[in-house]
């Protein structure tokens, strides 16, 4: 029996030749990532368990990105960043990307890719459920809690159950009006929010092969929205070129064997998928944009690890160029690198930044911002009665702030088209 890419990475990281889905193994961890919300409690558990004078297992393998509650006056939130700063100094950490310095990056999952921590064939754990984003690089990446992270901090190891794999193949060429976000929302409608619980979600097919790394990350990012342990896409030339550009040339490439066993296989033809939304209050509450067209909006939001990458803003700008928005529209670049590119990249000689400002958008600094609500002074946070369309990944009750607000999730193309109209609008009208 052949092995899937996820099983092969588990075998390598656990030192076993053969393993079976369902079996618990101890994995050697290549990178542990944490941030300002879960970092301080993780450090606290680690100190309680290993002693105040302990040293972490490998300081080069710990990466800390403050990113969640950054531009706020909330004293507790700012104290959490202080705690990270103090810990990083104490442990002399090379990979701490401090707020208020040139090293500040913004949203962890995007920064991990930009800074070269996503290495094919490796194992990355993070104290954030969207750690699965990194799986776009042919690696195993998943989220854990603070206790597990503290255990890794001390030992470099953690137990994990070998997941069964589900395969999602996308055939055909992506039409201009579709993005990876439409595809993953489509999958969620089919398999629901627990359809992949404890399983690996593997993506392939012609449409994936032609996708850039940013779009691939939108797919793997939302594996967790189906309960998936990880999302994964094998290395190909697109991956290799991305990595070569940031100076990464050596890594292990794993591919699923043709006779691998899958829990289930889904085949999609992208030409049959329409611009898609997830209606309130669940990412699996799928509908076509067409069916909800005309829904009145009070806010539009483009940002986060899944929807705030440069390609998301290129898509947004394609529709917003020369237009005005009718409702408050927030542009939140995931990382400082993305923010810089907004000034560099142009359409018809106009920078994306100018396109957004001319359209009347509000551009915020890079962070997780209102994707998860955050402290009360967070920019773009939803208030009572808001109806928001957003490129983020969750629309549970209260996720973006108020419990009485309603969140629609969609592609940046759909958010941009809707911002112009003030009501949910099919992007095909502007393309």
């Amino acid at each position: 029996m052949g092995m899937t890419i996820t099983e092969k990475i588990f075998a390598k990281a656990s030192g076993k030749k053969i393993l079976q889905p369902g079996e618990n193994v101890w994995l050697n961890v290549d990178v542990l990532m944490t941030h300002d919300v879960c970092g301080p409690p993780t450090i606290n558990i680690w100190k309680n368990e290993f002693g105040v004078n302990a040293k972490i297992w490998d300081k080069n393998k710990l990466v800390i990105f403050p990113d969640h509650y950054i531009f706020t006056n909330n004293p507790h939130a700012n104290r959490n960043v202080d705690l990270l700063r103090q810990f990083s100094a104490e442990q002399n950490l090379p990979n701490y990307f401090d707020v208020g310095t040139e090293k500040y990056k913004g949203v962890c999952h995007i920064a991990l890719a930009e800074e070269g921590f996503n290495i094919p064939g490796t194992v990355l754990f993070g104290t954030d459920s969207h750690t699965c984003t990194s799986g776009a690089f042919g690696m195993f990446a998943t989220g854990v809690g603070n206790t597990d992270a503290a255990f890794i901090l001390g030992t470099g190891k953690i137990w994990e159950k070998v997941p069964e794999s589900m395969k999602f193949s996308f055939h055909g060429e992506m039409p201009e009006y579709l993005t990876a976000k439409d595809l993953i929302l489509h999958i969620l409608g089919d398999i629901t929010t627990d359809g992949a619980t404890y399983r690996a979600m593997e993506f392939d097919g012609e449409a994936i092969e032609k996708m850039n790394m940013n779009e691939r990350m939108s797919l793997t990012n939302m594996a967790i929205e189906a309960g998936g342990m990880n999302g994964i896409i094998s290395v190909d030339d697109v991956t290799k070129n991305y990595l070569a550009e940031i100076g990464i040339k050596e890594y292990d490439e794993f591919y699923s064997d043709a006779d691998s066993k899958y829990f289930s296989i889904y085949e999609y033809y992208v030409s049959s998928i329409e611009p898609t939304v997830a209606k309130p209050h669940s990412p699996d509450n799928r509908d076509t944009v067409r069916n909800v067209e005309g829904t009145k909006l009070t806010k539009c939001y483009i940002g986060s690890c899944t929807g705030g990458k440069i390609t998301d803003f290129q898509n947004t700008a394609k529709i917003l160029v020369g237009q005005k928005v009718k409702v408050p529209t927030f542009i939140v670049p995931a990382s400082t690198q993305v923010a810089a590119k907004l000034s560099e990249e142009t359409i018809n000689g106009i920078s994306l930044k100018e396109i957004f400002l001319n359209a009347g958008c509000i551009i915020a600094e890079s962070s997780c911002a209102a994707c998860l609500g955050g402290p009360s002074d967070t920019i773009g946070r939803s208030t009572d009665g808001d109806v928001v369309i957003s490129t983020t990944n969750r629309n549970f009750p209260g996720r973006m702030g108020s419990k009485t607000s309603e969140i629609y999730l969609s592609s940046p193309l759909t958010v941009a088209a809707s911002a112009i109209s003030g009501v949910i609008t099919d992007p095909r009208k502007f393309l």
Partner: protein
Amino acid sequence: MANIIVGKAFVLGDNIDTDQIIPAEHLVYSTSNPSELKMYGKFSLSGVPIEKSGLPNGSCKFIEGEELTSGYSIVIGGKNFGCGSSREHAPLSLHVAGVKIIVAESYARIFYRNSVDGGFIIPIESIEKLNDKISTGDEIEIDLGKNNLTVMTTGKTYNLKPLGSVIEIVRSGGLFNYARKKKMI
């Protein structure tokens, strides 16, 4: 780990995500400072829409008024309990509020791991759907030796799934205690 757990049930629906268990805005409190830690109890389950809070009727407060802990020590859920973010503050908040055990049809992976590895709460899977058979406020007895749950008010008993491969971690009281027992650390 006690074999018999007795308490009042608080009943919830399917897909109770971590934003409902502890809304993200409260994640700023320290988990090591005892007075701040109490805030996690105070705001536990505060994100659940009021009409779905304490089924079947809803509109039940998990935490009353200015209290910091709950009168309910058993949570009955449906499918996919604890979906969403990786915040360990979710099982922690239920633990701080006084919850000992959750019985749900299924759990999201990270919430399940956090409950077990952190030693906060025992997450038990039911065999059948129970959140339409138990009402908020029912007195419940759970026998972890026999893997069953009895509703004291009706006398009805339902079988539960055994804890499986994580039982040793649960019995040890969390991952670190387990690893010490096994001489891993």
